[in-house]
């Protein structure tokens, strides 16, 4: 089938401001949108610029705004986009070139919530014990591939770029609710400040955007409760 692909382009070396570019491409219904971008880059316009690596939705490289929603280009099939597809860089990030956004700030925020196991005890000779039930409590957050789709879909971020954002809270949740971790209080403290969880207005855009089907908003709510009740056990 033949599809019209509209792409928002911007090359800082050539363009004063972004503009819309159009391509007509022959595609198979089960082609990924990423395949279509590759077809354009490899046979029509070598200057088209985007990130990609794994090509099957596990590395988080190619989150972009597709027909108005943040999606991974490698997880969207052409049969699902209609006769015309519109592709833009995600909102809430500065654009480096075409669909490539600057993710440094996103990763800085991720770092700020101490996304690593904090323990004060000595390590045992073998593994630490954790029951399957304890393991299940924080399972959802471990799926995160740091693609930034949730954060880039959040009106609170668009309005306030300093906000820590949903992805960071998901990853804080992953540790706060891990029975082996002893840094919960530190993180809850960080997240209770003015750019912490309270800027979340429960709009649910993030959960809709997440390509890993993480219930992002629910996890944020759980963190809010943990702050109110003084810890994950009480929440």
């Amino acid at each position: 089938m033949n599809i019209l692909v509209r792409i928002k382009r911007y090359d800082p070396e050539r363009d004063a401001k972004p503009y819309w570019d159009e391509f007509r491409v022959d595609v198979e219904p089960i082609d990924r949108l990423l395949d279509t971008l590759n077809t354009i880059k490899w046979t029509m316009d070598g200057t088209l610029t985007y990130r990609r690596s794994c090509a099957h939705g596990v590395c988080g490289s190619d989150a972009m705004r597709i027909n108005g929603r943040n999606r991974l280009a490698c997880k969207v099939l052409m049969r699902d986009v209609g006769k015309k597809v519109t592709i833009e860089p995600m909102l809430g990030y500065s654009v480096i070139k075409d669909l490539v956004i600057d993710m440094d700030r996103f990763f800085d925020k991720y770092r700020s919530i101490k996304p690593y196991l904090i323990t004060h005890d000595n390590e045992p000779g073998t593994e630490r014990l954790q029951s399957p039930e304890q393991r299940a409590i924080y399972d959802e957050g471990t799926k995160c591939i740091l693609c930034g789709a949730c954060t880039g879909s959040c009106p609170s971020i668009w309005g306030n770029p300093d906000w820590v954002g949903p992805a960071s809270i998901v990853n804080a949740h992953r540790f706060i609710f891990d029975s082996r971790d002893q840094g919960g209080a530190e993180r809850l403290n960080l997240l209770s400040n003015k750019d912490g969880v309270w800027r979340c207005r429960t709009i649910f855009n993030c959960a809709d955007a997440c390509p890993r089907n993480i219930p992002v908003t629910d996890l944020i709510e759980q963190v809010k409760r943990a702050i109110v009740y003084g810890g994950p056990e009480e929440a």
Partner: protein
Amino acid sequence: MYQKFDVVIVGSGGAGLMAAMQLPNASVAVLTKVYPTRSHTGAAQGGVAAALGNQEEDHWKWHMYDTVKGGDYLVDQPAAEILTREAIDAVYELEHRGLPFNRTEDGRIDQRRFGGHTRNYGEGPVRRSCYAADRTGHMILQTMYQNAIKNEVRFFNEFLVLDLLVNDGQACGVVALEIRTGEIHTFHAKAILFATGGYGRAWRVTSNAFACMGDGMSIAYRRGVPLQDMEMYQFHPTGIYKVGVLLSEAARGEGGKLLNGKGEYFMERYMPTLKDLAPRDIVSRCIVQEIKDGNGVDGKDYVYLDVRHLGAEKIAEKLPDITDFARNYLGVEPITEPVPIQPTAHYAMGGIPTDTDARVVIDSQWTPMPGFYAAGEVACVSVHGANRLGTNSLVDLIVFGRRAGKHMAQFIQENDFAPLPEHPEDASREYIDHLYSSTGGESAARIRSELQNEMIDNVFVERTDKGLRHALDEIAGLQEAYQNVQLQDKGKTFNTELVEAVELRFLLDCSEATIHGALARTESRGAHFRLDYEKRDDVNWLKHTLAYRGTQAHDVRLDYKDVILIEDPIFKPKERKY
């Protein structure tokens, strides 16, 4: 720009990050062409092998036996001993660093079956693979990256390394392109580790990420380092039909089976003991055989992976990602339908030769190149021999990544910076300038796609002298065409067209070495199967190939290195049956 670090690590997958963890008191730079969490390690699904014995009796020596036999005896046995012994402690280290393994009822790390892993020297399958659902690699990568943040490791993200700097036989730095700005940088270091992963993109049907272009292998090869056992390339039996995306062996570890077009579970016929859990080289060949015998589905070139009998609940709990891939890319519902699969390019057993401290060795006499290290898929220690067992790569990353880090920590204590060669950046600048200014009109995408087709046609599961010669001629032609590659994008900012062109040269180099090794090796062993020499030949071929680059594709020089065996009779080469 010029910068100086004690250690430069190229690659932020499992191997690179594990090494970085061992260097708390050194100045370390990690260079990576993608953001660290985008590294290919994140795609690994099934698990990491270690004889913890959490569910049933297991011993590292059984694991070692399986590794040696699985590798069709091309394994250096002392290295396999280190791998399997240290695996246990390395997995505990991962747990201590936060990795969320699945758990048993009593709270220990859960383990499951995987191809080629057996109890008591081949008696039957054993639960040895430690896992986190079907995203074990993702969890390793995340956990290691998180620990790197904790240890304040310095990252240079989206830096493409172009060259290794060698002065008077000693490695002393790298040259890299900063993708975002187009700037060239020199990194001066006492020790350099390549942890750049594999080159699965040389084949059209592949499980590998776009980034798996053989960068480290090619860069070393161009600096006179040989590439070892490149003909030993693994084709995984269960790639999604046409797309190549992997359906992990975990599916068969949990009880999934292969089904042919006649509705027959055919692996029982070939391998009565391990059946669908026989090693990958064997299973891939059985699939190809079934297809040749007209037992493909509707006479086509694929068969099915069937997990229906596992039930919806187990599939959802143990194989969520895999299920998702089948639904997403094929529109197939694994709970009720079998999934079309075919063998897919997957893993390089060969690579840059190293000793068990991950030091790069440059000849058959094990002469090290001081300051240069390699670990992970890019390296060949050689623990996988002619065929890697599932879950043994992730162990390789953590065990030898760790050893590399520890050895470098010692090396930088004992050694000073070697001076850089004169004009260290010249070769890289000249090359990049050539790509920018070329008006030859050739397209890198065309060359790449021809290469990938040729490799599938003639350097795949089954090989022949004629096919390999054809492939070699073809590569020679493509290398010539490469001189005329012309870019449309002349910009400096984030020029991915330039990056892809550079990567294509890496891929051509790796393919060239692969074909030479395969052509010379007139026997069948592990993943290397010659239709014209169907038997393994230990008298002539129980040895490693070393391929040295020449001036063009046809004049690669081959040398050989003995396989290291140990005295124990249990590891003596014998016929491989499962």
